[in-house]
């Protein structure tokens, strides 16, 4: 397999604090509305009268966890396949980048990506996305989101290496099944994580958060 950089997400350690999201916005000076990294809260369950105490309600199958994602720098990136200008491209190290000079802002990549990674910047009139902090990588430093995580839930590295360490899981709810684009990600599941496509919960965030 060719070299492929990947993110590691330990959802058992993610607190949904969004330090990664803010560090990303700071590093990239992103305006409100652009979230190259964002945190999905997935939750489910209900409250039912307790069997022994009908007037006391207790939680049933209640769970909550969160997943922080940015661009998945997929091995089969539909954004790259479908981009009409070739602005969206995949680098030798597997990082998917946008060449803003080529982008025409048609947003076809936005329709194609199941992770909402390419995002339209209305001021610049082009698509923008996570570039894996390529300038930091070049200096041997971790991406801003990884460096920021207070619970060390995020990491990055060679996909194969990460898979050796943490296994091959690349999708849990609410992420789509991984065979659409082969995301370059390795996930350690939260104890309540549900398999993609077969979840009993829902994404809980308010619309403006994601």
């Amino acid at each position, binding site marked *: 397999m060719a070299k492929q950089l990947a993110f590691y997400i330990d959802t058992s350690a993610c607190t949904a604090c969004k330090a990664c999201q803010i560090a990303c916005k700071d590093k990239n000076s*992103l305006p409100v509305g652009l979230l190259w990294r964002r945190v999905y809260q997935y939750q489910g369950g209900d409250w039912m009268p307790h069997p022994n105490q009908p007037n006391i*309600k207790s939680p049933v199958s209640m769970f909550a966890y969160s997943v922080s994602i940015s661009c998945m720098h997929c091995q089969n990136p539909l954004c790259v396949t479908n981009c009409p200008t070739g602005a969206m491209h995949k680098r030798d190290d597997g990082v998917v980048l946008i060449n803003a000079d080529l982008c025409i802002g048609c947003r076809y990549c936005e329709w194609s990506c199941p992770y909402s990674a390419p995002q339209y910047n209305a001021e610049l009139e082009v698509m923008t996305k996570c570039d894996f902090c390529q*300038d930091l990588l070049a200096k041997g430093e971790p991406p801003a989101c990884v460096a920021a995580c207070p*619970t*060390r839930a995020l990491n990055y590295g060679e996909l194969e290496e990460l898979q050796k360490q943490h296994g091959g899981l690349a999708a849990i709810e609410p992420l789509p099944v991984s065979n659409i684009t082969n995301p370059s990600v390795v996930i350690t599941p939260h104890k309540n994580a549900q398999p993609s496509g077969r979840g009993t919960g829902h994404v809980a965030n308010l619309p403006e958060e994601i």
Partner: protein
Amino acid sequence: MSEQSFLTKMLTETALTRRSFLKWSAALGGTAALAGGVRAGLKAVEKASAASEGEWITAACWHNCGGRCLLKAHVVDGVVTRIKSDDFSEENDNMTQLKACTRGHAKRQQIFGADRLKYPMKRKNWEPGGGKKELRGKDEWVRISWDEALDIVASETKRIKETYGNKAILSPVGNGALNLSAWPVGRMLSLYGGFTAIWGTTSWGALPLPGNRMQGVDVGGVHDRMSVRQSKLIVLWGANPVWSSAGNPTYHYMIAKKAGAKFIVVDPFYTPTAATLADQWIPCRPSTDAALLIGMAYHMITNGLQDQEFLDKYTVGFDADHMPEGADPKENFKDYVLGTFDGIPKTPEWASEICGTPADLIRSFAEEVSITKPTAFITGYAPARTNRGEQFIQAFYTVGWMTGNVGEPGAMVGVSCKERAGDTGPLAPALVYAGDPGVPAVENPICNYGFPGPPASATDWHGFVWNEAWEAVVTGEFTASVRGKQPCDIRMIWNIGDMSSLNQLPNVNQGIEAFRKVEFVVSADSYLTTPCKYADVVLPVTTMWERWGGIMNSNTYHSSRRDIFIYHRQITEPLFEAKDDIWIEAEIGKRLGLDPKVIDPVPYKQMVFNMLAGAQVVKEDGLEFENLLTITADDIARLGVDGTPQQGRITYKELEEKGLYQVPRKPGDKLGLIYFEDFRKDPVANPLNTKTGKLQIHSQSLADDVTDYGWTKLPPIPQYIPPPEGVEATRDGEFPLQLYSIHYMRRSHSTYDSVPWLREAFPQELFMNNLDAEARGLKTGDMVLITSPHGKALRPVFVTPRIMPGVVTMGEGAWVERDDETGIDKAGATNSLNGTNPCGQGVQPWNTNIAQVTRWEGQPLLPDAQWPQRVVFGKDA
């Protein structure tokens, strides 16, 4: 372009549109950005960061969050390009990096925000003595010179002092996000004859007095992180460190989890902490924790699960055979629980009806904490910030002690949250601390008490408990403990000293009435916070990034760990005309005829140097201390301060470069802290600082003192007595929901609330259970009107099974946006909804409120992140 003029230009060009925001952002990356337009701007960012290495300078992150984390600003050619936290050193579980939280990472947008106060200003219709006082909060602003502003403040202060006396000046500050912990708030006013101060337990709720009388320590009991790691079971009661002690504490708990600890979280809300750490969640309604604990005690007693040997040897008050001298034997805890005398057995079912926790869960929880050893039985402050919060503390300590988990590795009962959560508690002695800044203390002759307040019997003060402040201004009467009600006459509100009083004291509606009643209001801050908005004269204050430097060390109560020392430096020149608060106080004092040298006796830089030179660090033996710093004659000359060279553990240069010193730690070292260790080994030889020298389940002096404060009668043993506006009050119908206030990730109290990045990430939603939402036909994102007996607010609702039915909650600290006509606060400040209800030892019961929630049929709100910021003057002011 010089640094200052560039930053000034950058800020003034920041209007409200996204386009200009981008320009600003781009500008932060490189000076070429503004000339080349937006598209070129972003490229310039890339080029600038690629071309110039810049410098990482340790920057202050100084707010009242409890975290003290390492923050570094990347400065390239005088421009801050980005923020980074601690990833500078190798780490292991004993020497963890000090990662900053979400808020710290947003610091650049906070410091350089378009809404920074730029110039001194006055209200257009202001006149000496007031002038259309009802327009406070909605008048226009007029830019004025510093001289005019200081003259107005001085002359009004003088007039009011001379006409009404010093007691007519209320300064509701002193417990906020301290800009400078070395500087005593209100120093100048104290020298000028004093002022009416506010006091209260604030964050600590009902903790201090029961802690003091029952265990001899106001707040404490939790060992350091090395010992917490030895616990098999960690109970977190009403503590959500993920939000309230963001940064490092959660990670310490994760290390304990990795070491094998099981976590049980007790909370009305399945918090982010619970979602991350908890093996089990015990739902419990706000303000009913005492009932849950007493129900647990019943199960323990009736099944012989309590550690009777421990209780007999180390405590008094548990049963009739072990009562303190002079106490009525019938007044023992065991008989209260069993209902021996009142005929009400406090069974788990009895508790369940109150706290909402299923009875079988109460039983299994009681069994688990009784059987598992060692257990860490840890509470946050939140359950104590309730009406009748003392009863929770009494019950918490008592049930904790019933398990016998005291004074041994991994075994502890106590308070640990906010600062040093999961790693001792607020008052634990530090392993490294700063020296004295050298500013002699000044007493406020009128009320020298602040936090947590005067002793119950003291009569040498004229001041208001926090939650009675506005009422006192409006009604002219305040509660003065043993003296009963006393008259007062406030003519001026002095908000210089860094606290958003009007926003952060309960009952904002009454607060606005108070602000509009007095003759003069002056406020100083870096932003148009709520007390600034309702002031006559507003003074712009610098942030810590604009000052010479400073220390966030572990001898102040705001510090995240007892083994760290952070030295931060200046990042930028003062923005616009902002001045630091010492200068402001000195200038006003000068106009009042005081000697500026007395107000400000030690230059700022010298104060910081004194703290550095005097910094002490513990030696390996854990007993002796030595100088932290080696300081050379060159260092002293370079800094331009007075001092003598000294030897210490590390060089000044190293500290300056790294910004952080961590005391080396490893398990088994001699630097750990185990509370009550000696007492556990030999209670006779090492008595506690309590009346009997033992842990006091029964404390008559506690009961007497609380009663003396004048609001609440407290029994000497833990009992559950329904508080006003508790769950019982929801059963009447009009306000069927319990509302409590949580610390929220978007802010540290009210600090950071205006930062768009954080508003976007955390939309100030009302958390509501799915059943309550269904009954109202609500779904996530719908706008709801929240009504309490004290006010109204408008917010989007977040529907979730993660909160108990019948309970709603919202983050405290949003910047009030009240409509005078409707009385609706569309920002959703919890203090717009909270009543005052002073109680106990001067407690602010923020977590005991009732409310109703209905669908909002009016115009929906835009998301907060899209609101215009409070920008008073733009480019051409």
